């Protein structure tokens, strides 16, 4: 009997969700960065504005950067009007995204608890709840016994180092399957005729006065009517070439998953004081994250003591997880701005738009910024949702300080 050919009885490769085209010589709009924001922007350019002569240039593979590395938390309970406006806009789009994309994204509105552990936490949290209500964002303050009802595995006993004094609760918050989100956007953009070009790193720009006329890439020079930079942690690499200074610092942000567990954690829990955020993915692994590694870094990895601290915080809050095994850790490169708010809008170049500074919170904004940036590009005018986040706020002083004020875990 002759040996069987290895793989001969495997099924055919499934149909590709998008083409892998050669880049054309020029496009009306070139989006640099094929992550969530870039793909969403492409989708809404086609869907809302009929602009389809668009390329999304990705130096690696689609959605292989932070879009593949985040902890998938979606919420809109930010303190300031400017922030809650863009994130609530995003959340409303999330709520209709499966239908819009015609693709399952496992969007699960399981709610988020932001725990308060100190009197100051409590005051800040209640203030944020009231601000959220004024902005039409669903939010409530819940006492420890209600925390226990919403998420029974949280340790609400009073004998721990930082007892849970209550929490803010946003029921409409939740999680989604990050890869599916990217694939859904990519498929729709591709169907509309937009070219998604992978293995295409932007290395420079051709300029004519105050305009950028094209982008130089590892696959040749591509002409561009308008350029949108959606490169997250690598934005500075691009803006340095353009001679634009942007006040962001790139840091590794680590996340981790446990082995698969039975469904035990019904919501999303975030804690700033003990600093960890935990949800349970559909498949069953616990997904955790916390703060950035302190130093600037582009290495897509971080230091293990940061993981140790996250785990310590997680076990303090969830003693039931003490024997869960850590399965994987990884890091993405996040672009942190001085006020922990994004930087979106015009640049010194007439036809170059910036979208960066989302730091550790960019995933939840994906459809919101995609639609607002597409509007900004189509109308050559910053959409009201992104106008407050212009680069010039660091000169005018009109910061949107979500760092200290909202005490949100970024």
């Amino acid at each position, binding site marked *: 009997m002759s040996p069987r050919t290895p793989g001969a009885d495997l099924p055919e490769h499934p149909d590709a969700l998008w083409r892998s085209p050669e880049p054309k010589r020029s496009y009306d709009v070139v989006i640099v960065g094929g992550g969530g924001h870039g793909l969403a922007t492409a989708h809404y350019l086609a869907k809302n504005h009929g602009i389809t002569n668009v390329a999304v240039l990705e130096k690696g593979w689609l959605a292989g950067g932070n879009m593949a590395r985040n902890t998938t938390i979606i919420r809109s309970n930010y303190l300031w009007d400017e922030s809650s406006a863009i994130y609530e806009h995003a959340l409303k789009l999330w709520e209709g995204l499966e239908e819009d994309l015609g693709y399952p994204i496992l969007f699960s509105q399981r709610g988020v608890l932001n725990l308060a552990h100190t009197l100051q936490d409590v005051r800040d949290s209640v203030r944020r709840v009231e601000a959220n209500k004024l902005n039409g964002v669903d939010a409530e303050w819940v006492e420890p016994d209600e925390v226990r009802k919403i998420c029974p595995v949280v340790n609400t006993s009073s004998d721990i180092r930082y007892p849970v004094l209550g929490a803010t609760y946003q029921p409409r918050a939740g999680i989604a399957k990050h890869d599916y989100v990217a694939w859904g956007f990519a498929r729709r953009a591709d169907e509309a005729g937009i070219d998604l070009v992978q293995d295409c790193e932007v290395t420079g720009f051709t300029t004519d006065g105050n305009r950028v006329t094209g982008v130089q890439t590892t696959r040749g020079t591509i002409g561009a009517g308008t350029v949108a930079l959606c490169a997250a942690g690598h934005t500075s690499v691009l803006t340095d070439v353009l001679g634009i200074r942007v*006040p962001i610092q790139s840091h590794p942000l680590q996340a981790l998953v446990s082995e698969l567990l039975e469904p035990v954690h019904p919501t999303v829990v975030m804690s700033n004081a003990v600093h960890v955020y935990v949800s349970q993915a559909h498949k069953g692994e616990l997904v955790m994250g916390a703060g950035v590694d*302190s*130093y600037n870094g582009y290495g897509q990895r971080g*230091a293990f003591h940061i993981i140790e601290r996250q785990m310590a915080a997680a076990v303090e809050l969830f003693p039931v997880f003490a024997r869960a095994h850590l399965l994987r850790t990884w890091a993405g490169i996040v672009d942190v701005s001085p006020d922990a708010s994004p930087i979106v809008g015009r640049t010194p170049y007439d036809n170059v738009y910036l979208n960066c500074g989302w730091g550790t919170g960019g995933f939840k904004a994906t459809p919101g910024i995609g639609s607002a940036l597409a509007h900004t590009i189509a109308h050559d005018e910053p959409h009201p949702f992104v106008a407050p986040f212009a680069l010039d706020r*660091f000169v005018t002083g009109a910061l949107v300080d979500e760092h200290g004020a909202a005490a949100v875990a970024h």
Partner: protein
Amino acid sequence: MQLIACPWCGPREEVEFSYGGQAHVPYPDSPAELSDEEWAHYVFFRDNPKGRFAERWNHSAGCRRWFNAIRDTTTYRFERVYRLDDPKRGGTELASSRKEGTAP
């Protein structure tokens, strides 16, 4: 865990240190004459290179003294540490001075 060579204490574990961002950002010579834009750049804007970066570090759980380091933000490798009263060293000099004060 990465070892960082404090110029005073020698190699110590990374957890003993805290990060101070870009080094060699001097206070403006004539602060009263600065425009809003110049102030913005002094207060908020820092270099963010992918590669070699001159940074401030503090041995916060050790001797508590500040020092500077040349570190690669891609590999996270410390190429050199030097005291605050040393002038900034250029690229070629960096490459040839890796022995002194280099973390193992």
